[in-house]
């Protein structure tokens, strides 16, 4: 008796859904403002809804902070600065920050799930990147708290006072960590406003900070729209503004603080060049291109959204990109196998779709993955534009979505000129097997971060920030302490 050596049972293999459970998540129906260590009702008495962009279902209502609320938050921060935080021995400050880091690690799964629910990013990323990296930022800056004299010898570093911090929706928790950790380590107190579409992990962080026993008022978190942010920026008792977001808003902030002695750091838009030379490890470069543009649905200010491929390898790189596009899984952000989740909001999806139309109208050749996208929720297929040139708007302007504009180049001089021919200068990528070429480019590219043979690598010890209209000031590393200190 023998069995047939059959293979036909296996004609097609797809991964069964593997959704991360949400049973362990506790979300309130309504969230108030976190001021002076307590959750308080907003003066405005108004609340706004925050949704899950993958399903368009409401997750919670969040308080809308008006000028009086912001005033209360800033006063609480100022009071805590003068009476507690400024006077506390630096080592004690460090202990509180270490405690926040540990609590975040303990509750990592909860934060990851909420980040994906509220922001639309795949759970693989929130679990493996956002949350661990946020905890690492707290750990890293906790260590600096009592070593500032060593960081800046003979300079007598002093804290500034109240830091007003406004963060974007693409990495809600991570950006909160990037802002809060160095501010606390340097002895400042904080009023932070998360983005209106993604307030939940910041509010969860507020709960965690309350539970950590951090003195009241050291960190205050107020939610709202642009007006709330403007109230923070314009408040006279705020000594320092840290903003991450669009270049347009960055310009408004700079105008409104002109003539004051507020310090400011701006981390704004980008349109990074990702440069592939013919001697690059091609398959790994293709992976780097994919990671560079499709990480977090392309909602990354340092996304490698302009691809430059040396002409003699363009055909093979593009063929492989198309092949790789087919293996990207687009869909439910909570599925552990999802590579590309939901676009953060209806407005952002509209903006991306407008740019896709502009690209087509400009005559660039569009190529999209053949994947299906869910009918409900905000989704966009991973998109390539072939045969683009510097003059195309899709090459010049930041799209902030899963859309890659591909150009070819022939010589090193040409690609350096094209890479720099843009108002932005946040990041760049270089792919070549030749070390000398890497060093040549890193000195000539006008970008704050240049990755070689990799992309989108972040580490708390490494400074991050831009040239030109991508902003100024650095976050991360030793450099990230400086904007929060006076010497």
């Amino acid at each position, binding site marked *: 008796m*023998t*069995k*047939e*050596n*059959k*293979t036909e*049972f*296996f*004609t*097609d*293999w*797809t*991964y*069964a*859904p*593997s959704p991360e459970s949400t049973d362990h998540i506790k979300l309130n129906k309504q969230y108030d403002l976190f001021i002076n260590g307590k959750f308080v009702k907003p003066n405005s008495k108004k609340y706004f809804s925050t949704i899950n962009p993958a399903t368009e279902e409401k997750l919670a209502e969040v308080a809308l902070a008006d000028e009086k609320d912001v005033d209360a938050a800033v006063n609480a921060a100022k009071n805590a600065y003068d009476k507690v935080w400024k006077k506390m021995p630096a080592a004690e400050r460090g202990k509180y920050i270490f405690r926040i880091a540990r609590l975040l690690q303990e509750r990592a799964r909860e934060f990851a799930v909420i980040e994906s629910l509220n922001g639309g990013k795949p759970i*693989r990323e929130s679990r*493996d990147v956002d949350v661990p990296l946020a905890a690492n930022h707290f750990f890293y800056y906790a260590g600096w708290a009592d070593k500032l004299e060593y960081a800046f010898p003979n300079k007598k570093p002093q804290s500034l006072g109240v830091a007003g911090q406004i963060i974007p929706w693409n990495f809600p928790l991570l950006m909160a960590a990037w802002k809060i950790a160095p501010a606390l380590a340097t002895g400042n107190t904080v009023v932070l406003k998360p983005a209106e579409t993604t307030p939940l992990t910041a509010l969860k962080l507020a709960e965690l900070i309350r539970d950590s026993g951090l003195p009241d008022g050291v960190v205050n978190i107020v939610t709202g729209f642009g007006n709330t942010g403007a109230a923070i920026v314009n408040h006279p008792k705020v000594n320092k503004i840290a903003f991450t977001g669009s270049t347009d808003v960055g310009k408004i902030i700079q105008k409104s603080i002109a003539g004051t002695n507020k310090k400011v750091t701006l981390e704004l838009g980008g349109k990074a060049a990702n440069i592939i030379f013919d*001697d*690059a*490890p*091609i*398959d*790994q*470069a293709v*992976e*780097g291109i994919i990671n560079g543009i499709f990480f977090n649905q392309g909602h990354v200010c340092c996304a490698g959204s302009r691809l430059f491929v040396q002409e003699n390898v363009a055909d*093979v790189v593009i*063929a*492989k990109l198309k*092949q790789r596009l087919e*293996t990207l899984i687009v869909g439910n952000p909570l599925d*552990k*196998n999802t590579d590309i989740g939901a676009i953060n909001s209806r407005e952002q999806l509209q903006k991306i779709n407008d740019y896709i139309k502009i690209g087509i109208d400009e005559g660039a050749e569009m190529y999209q993955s053949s994947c299906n996208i869910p009918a409900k929720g905000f989704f966009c297929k991973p998109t390539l534009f072939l045969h683009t040139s510097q003059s195309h708007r899709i090459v010049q302007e930041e799209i902030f979505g899963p859309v890659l504009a591909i150009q070819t180049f022939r010589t090193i001089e040409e690609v350096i000129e094209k890479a720099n021919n843009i108002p932005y200068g946040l990041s760049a990528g270089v792919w070549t*097997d030749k070390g000398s070429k890497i060093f040549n480019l890193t000195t000539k590219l006008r970008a704050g971060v240049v990755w070689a*043979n*990799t992309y989108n690598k972040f580490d708390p010890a490494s400074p991050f920030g831009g040239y030109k209209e991508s902003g100024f000031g650095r976050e991360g590393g030793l450099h990230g302490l400086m904007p929060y200190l006076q010497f």
Partner: protein
Amino acid sequence: MDFNNSPKIDQVGIEERVARFNTRSIKKQSKVQALKLALNMIDLTTLEGKDTEGKVIQMCYKAMHPADDLKDLPTVAAVCVYPNFVKTAKKALGNSGVKVASVATAFPSGNSTLDIKLSDTKLAVDDGADEVDMVISRGEFLKGNYNFVYDEIAAIKNACGKARLKVILETGELSTLDNVRKASDIAIAAGADFIKTSTGKIQPAATMPVTLVMLQAINDHYLKTGQMIGMKPAGGISTAKVALQYLVMVHETLGNKWLNNEWFRFGASSLANDIILQLGKEQKGVYYSKDYISND
């Protein structure tokens, strides 16, 4: 042909890609399907000095009947033996469809003359081997004598006739991923039907990074010529979990066309029993003792 122009490999990038395959979550029906597939891709192997006809016959029965107490199990793909056991295996397997693969060419070192290697191959083929697993001359490769390696593979391919040729690179002796890529390109150009990582006699044997580099060489050849080449990682893959990770890697590098035993094999001996254990758990609802599973 100039094999110095093989694409460069970035080891860090390869390892990151592998790490990403390993975060795929394979559940429910897709897991059962993949476990059966993996079982069906196994080249059940015995390559020991102490092998006997009796042992080979017992293994052949296991190849045809991996676990008769479970429903809907496929057979394995092939048994892999030394040339002098090909006849025995062929007879034992009958018309079951399970193939006989024979190692040849002075396995495992490959240190002998071409004449000896050719007659070794002919012995296996004449005795009915469906597949020949040859080893490349690693010494000549590391000397940079790529044409020697190429010519040798081409000659063995010629001697194989209708039998399919698997070319073992013995990646554990090649030291770098750049060399793995180069050796893959040489083997494919010289006529390999399959490329295979290891003899199982050298550590490290098959690893995911090495296998990925070889899959990418296969993909490049396919994109250029439309011709499919098979892949066989061998040695060191002993658990169902790791086997599924390999399948994810094949699935996302070459696609479903390669997901059958015509184009992908696992060279393994203990893997089959771990897969049987997992499939048994799916069918019976509980894990049971390994004592219930035959060790042949």
